[in-house]
């Protein structure tokens, strides 16, 4: 009974993937993807996704660490800040980003002084992706760091490791499976980011927007191949991270 119920839920969750695979025709794939420039959105999404991940690791990791170890005053306030971008609908984030970094804002002026723009540029795409994926990384990394027993870090210190070295030798390896999962989920969110992207980074066109415009212009069948490409790009990292972290945990069990 319980097993059957779980099975139904599992199939329902996998339904969209099954639908995609059953409705794709080989002909549609070849015609859509053989068009000139068909892979440009893919390349753009992969590049902006990689930059997004870099930004997340660089800025999100210290924040996640501080949240996990309670090193911040008013921790609830900080957590609320992280949750805000998770709870706001992406479309709303996009609208608000226009008011924050659009061309007629102080930040926009500052950027144009540097010959940059945060509207319809690669930078805009990265910013939108960061906003849509950051909470997933920060919260996941926070959980990963929280799972590391602080007494082990203390033990490393007593064995001669200054904090940075203890972090590198004990904390990071122990949190690594959780960090990898957080990063993988953030990658999937960044790849699929649409709501904020459609408002501040309609151009250049990444994969999600390519699906949207193809759907608008030529209809469902020709949009499906891009959906497959998006899955193929977005999913391997999470799957690899999942397998790797499961194996790392297994190794630890001996």
């Amino acid at each position, binding site marked *: 009974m319980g097993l059957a119920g779980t099975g139904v839920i599992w199939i329902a969750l996998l339904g969209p993937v099954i639908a995609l695979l059953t409705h794709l025709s080989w002909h549609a794939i070849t015609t859509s993807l053989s068009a000139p420039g068909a892979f440009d959105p893919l390349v753009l999404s992969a590049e902006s996704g990689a930059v997004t991940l870099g930004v997340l690791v660089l800025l999100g990791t210290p924040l996640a660490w501080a949240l996990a170890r309670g090193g911040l005053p008013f921790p609830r306030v900080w957590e609320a800040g992280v949750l805000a971008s998770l709870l706001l609908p992406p479309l709303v984030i996009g609208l608000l980003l226009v008011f924050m970094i659009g061309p007629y804002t102080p930040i926009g002026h500052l950027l144009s002084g540097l010959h940059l723009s945060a509207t319809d540029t690669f930078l805009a795409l990265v910013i939108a992706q960061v906003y849509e994926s950051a909470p997933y990384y920060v919260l996941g990394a926070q959980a990963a760091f929280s799972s590391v027993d602080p007494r082990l870090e*203390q033990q490393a210190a007593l064995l*001669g490791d*200054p904090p940075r070295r203890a972090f590198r030798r004990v904390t990071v390896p122990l949190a690594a499976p959780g960090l990898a999962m957080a990063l993988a989920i953030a990658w999937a969110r960044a790849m699929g980011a649409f709501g904020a992207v459609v408002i501040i980074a309609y151009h250049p066109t990444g994969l999600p927007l390519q699906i949207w415009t193809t759907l608008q212009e030529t209809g469902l069948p020709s949009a499906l191949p891009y959906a497959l490409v998006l899955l193929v790009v977005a999913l391997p990292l999470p799957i690899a991270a999942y397998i790797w972290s499961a194996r790392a945990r297994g190794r630890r069990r001996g």
Partner: protein
Amino acid sequence: MLEADVEVDRRDFTVRASLTVAPGERLALFGPSGAGKTTLLEVIAGMVAPRRARIALAGRVLTSTGKSATAVPPWQRKVGLLRQDPGLFPHLSIRDNLLYARRGRAGRVGPAGPAGPVAGADGAEGADGAAAGNLAELTELSEILGIAGLLAAMPARLSGGQAHRVALGRLLLAHCDALLLDEPYAGLDASLRRTLTDLVVSLVGQRRVPSILVAHELAETQAFADRLAVLDRGQILQAGSPSEVVLRPASRRVAELVGYTGFVPVPGSGSGSDRGSGPGSGSGSSPGSGPRSGRGSGPGSEETVAGVHPDRVIGGRHPDRGLVLAGVVTGCRPAGALWEVTVRVSGSRATVVARLPEAAPSEQEIALTALDPPCFGPDGTAVGIGETATVPR
């Protein structure tokens, strides 16, 4: 040599203690839970900031408050701490756990190490030499600890006793200048605890490091220490050899902590002479054994009590060996291979507990002799030993 003079605030009291532990010496801090024992170790290890302290280890000042404040961080103290949780790194093999401190240090020294501008070849040679030294010591120590067959295993595979052996080996390979043991074997069974304690004792003696064990079980501290300090609510009440502390408690509170359960008014103890005891008479190390004959006189016998330890009572009347107690059995239950007999002492409200080889039925009249019981004056300080104690002058 480890010297610690520490004052550190706890929620409800202040821990004030002063300790000196010589190289190779084993000091046990004994006291009830929450007496401040662990806090003291954490201050020495540099994990808790004291209000006022001066800590020196092997000629280095680790902590000093005041004008020229010093606070050496934990990772430069070379103080080893072993807790109940062995704290092995779960992502590293036993070998890597054991060599953890060595690897870290090697990383720090490196080619541009403190040796100065050395040629690359020399540096590599030095590293090789260190690695060989590590390996030899690792092999030797893992043989002694009985973990030689486990070096490739992961910590999760180890039993509790094995994990503790590895944790001890890891500290010894780190070449700590002091070893702090915070009830490390509290969760293990008695025979394992004994084996591990013996192992620590022999290794501490071999390596000549000062060591401190914290425990709230007396037997455990006795098996380990050659000096015992009794800590209660942040104060060291008495320090001395384990047998001295148990047989000659400096105060009634110490007696209670080391297991004295009955306090019987001494018949005919002179109240007048008790008054004469100044604050100086509290030093428990004074082995003053007062005369045993009932020479004391006058009323006020309530004021001096003899401490009765359940393990230091024999059946029968033996006035030459201590204080004879007559009473009625009120309870009897098995305790190990002995019987724990509760006796209400005639002529007083006191009850004593004795562990005797034979059971005694309730309501039976019984005579017991408390062997050389320590006696305590009305203020709780020790006033001597014997059937009727008088102030040692």
